[in-house]
Structure formats: C-alpha cells, structure tokens
C-alpha cells in the first residue's frame, strides 16, 4: 500500500483510536526492567547495606543469609552492596561511552553525509580504519596509551564507539539531504548548520535512538569485559566486570557468586535491548 493511502487512512481515525495501537510489549517489559534496575542503581549511590569496600574476615565466602542477601566474596565483602555500587559504576561508564560515541558520531556523520566530497572521503576512510578493529581491542590500545582509570576507560570506549554511530548518522543524512524539504530550507536562506541540526537531525532520531540502545548494551558488556581483563575499573572499586573476574576463581565452590553478578548484567542489557526494540516499533 502506498504512503498516500496510508496518510488518508490515519486521517480518518480519531486521535483516541490512533493512540490505542497494538500493545508494544517490548517497550513495556523493557521499560519495567530498566526502571527497576535504575531504581536499584540510584539507591546504590546513596545507600548500601554494608560498605562495599569493607572486608570482614569472619564472613569470607559466606552463603546467602538474612544479613547478606547474596552472600559475601572471598574478602568477606557483602556481594549485594558491591553489586549495587558496581552496576552504578558500569552504568556510568556505559553512559559516558555512549555520550562521547553519539556526540562525536552525530557531528562526524552529519558533516560527512551532508557535505560529501573530499571531507567525506578522508573522514570516512579514517572511520573505516577504526571500524576495522574490534572495539575492545581498540580500547585496549587506548588504555595502554592513556593508562588505567575509570575516566580513561570512558574515553577509550567512547572513541571506539564513534565509527558505528558516525556511519548510521551519515547514511541517514545521505538519505535526507536530497529531499525537497532540504532544498526548500536552502531557498528560505537557512544556513548549513541549521539545515543539518534543526531540519535533518530530527529525522534521524528514530534510527539513532534504537542504535543508541544497542550501543548502550555493547558498552555495558565492553566495560564488563575490560574490567574482567583487569584493565578497567581498578580494585578496590566495584564494577560488574571486575566482580565477575574475581568470582571466576570460585565458580565451582560458590556458583551463586558469579551467577548473581551475571544475572545483573543480563537484566541490565535485556532491559535496554527491549527498550530499543520497543522504540523502533513506535516509529
């Protein structure tokens, strides 16, 4: 069916009917999981049952109990407190990564897509070169140059994430820049920057938003991966990846230790993944 008839069809509907579209399960479930996780993490910033860095010799590898919901780790630290705190760190790192990645990606993608020509050729070849490396490997290189530390991880991962966003934004700009409404904007005297960021950018949002959600997942996993490798968040601070790497040694003696952390990562990623799908459906 052509767009034409669809336009007429939606017009005939009252707004109420329009709002009552098919139920978007992805969006609902995703939102519930994400909001719950965010509430947990926010609580973790202000309150944890125990000090997540405090060690207690007597509670080494203690099992699940009323005092310790998820037991204690090999230093006798409360796992639940550390998960609360650690997922906060992971979330912050992921958010920072995405901000750098999308911010620079939008600017790069907009410039290359809109102007084209030699600017596009040069920037996109550099982009391709960066894209050719797995993002974790790239981040490893940056870390070895910058040194470890939470801020450095954000920068390293952020840079590694730029190319994928730049590509998405660029292709959307390429699609939109030949539309007649862009010509119309030029005719009324709108400048290039205004056309790029006021006229075209909102049209890229649906695609961008869902890829931000997927990128967010990748960032969570990348942070966990790097901390697991020991080049991410440094001890004694908690992060989900860091903890997973510590739990590895006790996989057979205390499986609940690694499992509880794993479930947290899965929930975080699943929530954002479903949310991303849901937003895509909204479009």
């Amino acid at each position, binding site marked *: 069916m*052509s767009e034409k008839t669809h336009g*007429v069809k939606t017009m005939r*509907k009252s707004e109420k009917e*329009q709002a009552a*579209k098919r139920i978007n399960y992805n969006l609902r479930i995703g939102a519930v999981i994400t909001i719950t996780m965010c509430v947990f993490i926010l609580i973790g910033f202000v309150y944890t049952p125990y000090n997540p860095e405090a060690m207690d010799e007597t509670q080494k590898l203690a099992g699940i109990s009323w005092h310790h919901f998820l037991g204690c780790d090999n230093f006798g630290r409360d796992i639940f407190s550390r998960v609360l705190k650690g997922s906060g760190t992971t979330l912050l790192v992921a958010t920072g990564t995405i901000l750098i990645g999308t911010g620079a990606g939008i600017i790069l993608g907009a410039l290359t897509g809109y102007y084209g020509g030699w600017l596009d050729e040069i920037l996109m070849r550099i982009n391709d070169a960066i894209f050719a490396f797995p993002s974790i490997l790239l981040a490893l290189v940056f870390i070895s140059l910058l040194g470890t530390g939470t801020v450095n991880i954000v920068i390293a991962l952020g840079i590694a994430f730029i190319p994928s966003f730049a590509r998405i934004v660029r292709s959307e700009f390429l699609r939109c820049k030949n539309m007649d409404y862009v010509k119309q904007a030029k005719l009324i005297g709108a400048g290039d920057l205004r056309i790029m960021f006021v006229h075209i950018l909102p049209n890229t949002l649906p695609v961008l938003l869902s890829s931000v959600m997927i990128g967010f997942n990748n960032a969570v996993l990348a942070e966990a991966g790097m901390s697991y490798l020991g080049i991410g968040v440094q001890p004694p601070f908690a992060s989900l990846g860091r903890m997973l790497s510590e739990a590895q040694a006790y996989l057979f003696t205390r499986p609940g230790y690694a499992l509880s952390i794993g479930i947290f990562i899965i929930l975080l990623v699943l929530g954002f993944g479903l949310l991303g799908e849901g937003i895509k459906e909204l479009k």
Partner: protein
Amino acid sequence: MGTILEIKDLNIEFHDHSVPETVVFDFSMQLQEGEIVGIVGESGSGKTMTALAIAGLLSRHDITKKGQIIFKEQDLLICKRSILREFQGKDISMIFQEPMTSLNPVRKIGWQVEESLRLHENLTKEELKKRAIDALREVELPEPEKIYRQYPHQLSGGMRQRVMIASAMICNPKILIADEATTALDVTIQAQIVQLLKRLNSKKNTAILFISHDLSLVRKLCTKVIVMQNGHIVERGNTEDIYQNPQEVYTKQLIAAIPKCEKNFE
C-alpha cells in the same frame, strides 16, 4: 465470450489498528474475456486494494477479506497458496504505478522479463531469450536485443513501463491489472501506453482492469467503467454513457476535473 472473473460482495478490512477499518465495501463486478474495464477514483477510494486482492497480493495477517473472487472455478480468497501461485504471473498479472521501483535495479531487463516464464514454463535458455525478445518487440520497444542486455536505470520512465508490460504479458495472461500504470508518466507517454494496451488487448484478447484517477484516460481505453469513492461503488456502466450522462455528483466532479485546453477559471 464468457465471464472469466467474478467478484461477489468483496469487503476488505484492515486490522492494524485497534478498531477495524473497512476500505472496500461490497464490491461486485464481472470481467468478460477480452474486455477492458476501468476503475476510477481518488487515492483512498479503495481501488488499489481491490486490485491487490484480485492479484492475490493481500495476504497479510491483519487484513480480512469477505466475499468471493472467482477465477477458473476457484475462489482466490480461500484457495490454496500453491493454486494461487500457479495463477499469479501466468493467468493474472499486474503492472504498477512506479516504473522506477517495480523493476529490480540490479538485474538485467532480459532476466526480469523472463522471470515469470522461468517459473511457469519449462523452457531452455535459448527459448527463454527468444520469447523475451519477442515480448519486448511486442511492446514496441526499439532494438529489443539491446534492451535485453540493459539495466533498468539506462531506460526512461516510459520505456520501463513498456518493459513492465512485456514481463506481465509474456505468459499471455487472461487478465492484466494495470494499477495507475500511466500516472507517473508524461502526458504524451501516457497516451502511447494507453494505445499499446489497446493494441495488446485486441491482438491477444487479454482482459484488462485499468485503474486510474484520470477519467479521460479511462475513456480512451475502457468500454466499461466503475467509479469508486471511499470504498463504495458510486456508479458503473458503459464509459460513454457515464461520460456523456453522469448520474452521480461525484462522477460529475471527476469529469469536470479533467484538464481541458480552456481558461475555465477566468
């Protein structure tokens, strides 16, 4: 002359919103062998939906269809997919509005014209090629051998639409559905395509269902016409009768809207 297609009380209903919406109401018609019937209406009148239903291209799960579309003693709405597929392309074929998107840009013209033959008949490569070139010649394309090897982007809009007609006609179908087949073209090319359809109709005795918003084109081509508005049939009859003596207000509006070479706004 016998009836080859009969549509009885066709209703088409969409379910992609919470409240079902009917886009075609109680559509009935008969198509005789070798007849050219026009369906006229504005966008949103349900004419394209009707055409897609006849071609068996409306089978998405959120559309319900009531009524009957009878072709060769089969009800196209309920028959098996395999039977429907046997009809599609061989007995019933369709050409679309946009010649830019209805041809696959990465395939050569020859391959695309041959495609329905390849699916419905067992022929060797040479026979396929011969039939394809014959079909291209039949739609009055110059140098069919050359066009056979070309890609869609090398042709103009009018030529592409001729290619579409060639690939629709190659299996000598009983029914050709032309959905706004001339709308995207220049007036001069429109006239040529209409002439071509007329010639193909008299030569091969293919029944044509010509769907358009332009009554002047329908008048040039069709013996009978059905006027549709908002999913309902407003008026039907012989084209000349309706053109000379329209009964309904809507039909009168459609006739008045045909651009003429006179300054009727002064």
